[in-house]
C-alpha cells in the first residue's frame, strides 16, 4: 500500500474517531486539528453528526479551505442554518452537546485543563483564557482532550510539562479536582474526559478517572510517554500501535487544508514527520 501520513493527519483521524454519530458536536476557536477532524468525521465516519462551528455557530458548514483564524466567513460557507452563542451553550447546559474537544497548556492526571495561567500562587505566565471551556467541560456529554505538545524538550535542564500531575489553575473540569471533588458530586450532566489524543499516543481514563495510556504511534514508545509526562500514567494491559488514516481521510484533509493550518498546532520538528503503517495496528 505504501500509505504514508503526517503526524498532524494521524491526530486529526484519531480525533475524528472519537465522535459518535447522531450527536451534536462543537469545536471552539484556535483548534484547527479538531475543526478538520469534525469535517472528516462528518464525511467519513458519522454522516449524521450535527457539526456546530466555533465562532461562526454555523451548522454543518462545508468550507472551501481552512483559514488561520476561526471566526472567518470562509468557515461558515454552506452552513445549513445557524445557532446563536447563547443557544449553543444552552444546548450544552441542558445536556444536549454530545461531545466537546478541550485542550490546555496543562492537562492533568484527572483530565482537568488549564488555559488560564501558569503559576499557582504567583502568576508566571498569563495564558489567553479558556473561552467557554469551563462551562462546556461540565455538561458536554463526552469530552475528547487533545494536545500536540505532549513532547516537552528540556529548556536549561528543566521541562515545562504539558501533561502534569496537577493543573496550576483548573479552567476546564475533568473527573475530579485537587480537592477531590468529583463531577458526580457537583451534579454535572457530562461524563467528563473520555480520551486524550497527544502527539505521543492516545489515552483513556480508567474507572477512577485517571489518565491511562492506550495506544502508541508508529514513531513513539512507552519511554517517550514516561519521559514527557510529569507523573506516571497508568497503562492499558496491552498497548497497541495505532493504524494510520485511510486514503479517503487523507485526501479529505489535504483538500480541506491546503494552507496546512493544522500544522501550526504541532511543534516545528513534528511537522516534517512522515509516518508509515506499522504491522500491529489498532484503533483508539
Amino acid at each position, binding site marked *: 500500500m505504501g500509505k504514508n501520513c503526517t503526524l498532524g493527519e494521524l491526530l486529526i483521524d484519531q480525533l475524528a474517531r472519537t465522535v459518535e454519530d447522531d450527536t451534536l458536536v462543537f469545536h471552539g476557536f484556535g483548534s484547527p486539528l479538531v475543526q478538520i477532524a469534525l469535517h472528516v468525521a462528518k464525511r467519513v465516519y458519522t454522516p449524521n453528526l450535527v457539526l456546530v462551528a466555533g465562532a461562526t455557530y454555523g451548522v454543518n458548514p462545508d468550507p472551501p479551505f481552512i483559514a488561520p483564524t476561526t471566526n472567518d466567513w470562509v468557515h461558515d460557507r454552506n452552513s445549513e442554518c445557524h445557532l446563536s452563542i447563547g443557544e449553543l451553550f444552552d444546548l450544552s447546559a441542558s445536556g444536549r452537546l454530545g461531545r466537546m474537544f478541550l485542550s490546555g497548556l496543562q492537562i492533568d492526571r484527572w483530565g482537568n485543563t488549564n488555559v488560564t495561567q501558569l503559576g499557582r500562587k504567583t502568576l508566571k505566565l498569563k*495564558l489567553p483564557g479558556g473561552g*467557554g471551556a469551563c462551562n462546556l467541560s*461540565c455538561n458536554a456529554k463526552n469530552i475528547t482532550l487533545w494536545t500536540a505538545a505532549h513532547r516537552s524538550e528540556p529548556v536549561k535542564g528543566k521541562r515545562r510539562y504539558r501533561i502534569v500531575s496537577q493543573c496550576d489553575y483548573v479552567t476546564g473540569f475533568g473527573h475530579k479536582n485537587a480537592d477531590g471533588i468529583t463531577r458526580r458530586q457537583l451534579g454535572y450532566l457530562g461524563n467528563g474526559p473520555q480520551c486524550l489524543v497527544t502527539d505521543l499516543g492516545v489515552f483513556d481514563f480508567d474507572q477512577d478517572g485517571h489518565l491511562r495510556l492506550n495506544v502508541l504511534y508508529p514513531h513513539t514508545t512507552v519511554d517517550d510517554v514516561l519521559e514527557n509526562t510529569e507523573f506516571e500514567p497508568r497503562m492499558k494491559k496491552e498497548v497497541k500501535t495505532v493504524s494510520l488514516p485511510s486514503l479517503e481521510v487523507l485526501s479529505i484533509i489535504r483538500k480541506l487544508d491546503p494552507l496546512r493550518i493544522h500544522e501550526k498546532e504541532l511543534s516545528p520538528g513534528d511537522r516534517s514527520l512522515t509516518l508509515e503503517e506499522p504491522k500491529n495496528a489498532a484503533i483508539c
Partner: protein
Amino acid sequence: MSSREPMALIRSIIRNRVNGLTVVGSAHGIDIDLLCGANAVSASQESYVGFEQDFGMAHNYRRGCESGEIEIQDNCCYTLVQQLRASIQGLPFMPIQSVRGTDFEKNHPSYKTIQSPYSGEDILVVPPLTPDVAIIHAQYADLHGNLRIEGPPVVDLLFAQASRTVLATVEKIVTNEELKRLGGANIPYFYVSYIAEAPMGAHPTACYPFYAYDREHTELYMSAAKEGSTAFKKKYLKDFVYECESHEEYLHRIGGEDTRVRLSSWKESTDAWMELYKEST
C-alpha cells in the same frame, strides 16, 4: 477575535487618552491587546485574549497581566452570557449549570451557591453584568440607529441589550428601506446611543462582505508587540493610532485604496481568498 471588532472606535478611545478601563467580552484578540498596549486597561474580565494558533499569545495583554497593571478577573463565555441575561431580565442573579469545581468559582467571590427550592440540589448563581458602555462595529445602520449585523453576531446583541450606553460604528449608513431589504435590523435603534459611519472601521479584523481579515497588517502588529511595550508604542501605536488624527488618516497609512481592494478580493474566487491567508515568505 479577527472579525468585526470596533477597531476605529478603539483607536479613537486611545487617542482620547481614556484609561483605567475594565474590559469584558468573550473571545478577543487585537482589540483588547491594542487597548492594553496603550495602557488603557486596568482590569480584564475577558474569557479569551489571543491570536489562536496563528500568532499565539497577545503580548501586550500578557505583559499587562503579568506586570500587575491589569487586574485579572477572567470570565467564561457562558457565565458572561448568563450575567448579561440577568441584567437584561432585571434579575438579581442568574443560575448557571457549570463553573463549580473549577478555579473560576474560587476566584469569583461574587458567584454564590444556593439550593434549588425544588430538588434541594446545589446550583451556582452569578450576579447581573451591566456594562457602562458597549462598543460595536456593524455592517449597516439606518439614520435612526437601527443596526444590522451580518454573519455571526456572537455576544453583540446581548451586550447591546445589557449596556447603559451603546456606541456603534458601521461600514455604511443606509435608509431603513434598504436595511430591511438587506434582511432587517438585529439591534433596534432604541438600544443604540450613538452611531458613526466608519468604512473599514474593523480593520485589521474582517468585516465581511466588505473585506477580509488583514493577516499581513496583523503580522506587522504582532512583530511590534512582541518586541516589548516601548517598541510597540514606537513601532505601532505612534504610526497607526497617535499620529492618525482621523480614521481617514489611518486608512491612508494602512495603504488606502490598494489595501481595500486587496482585502475585498476574497469575493473573486476561493484562490483569491486563500491568497490573503498565505504565510508571507
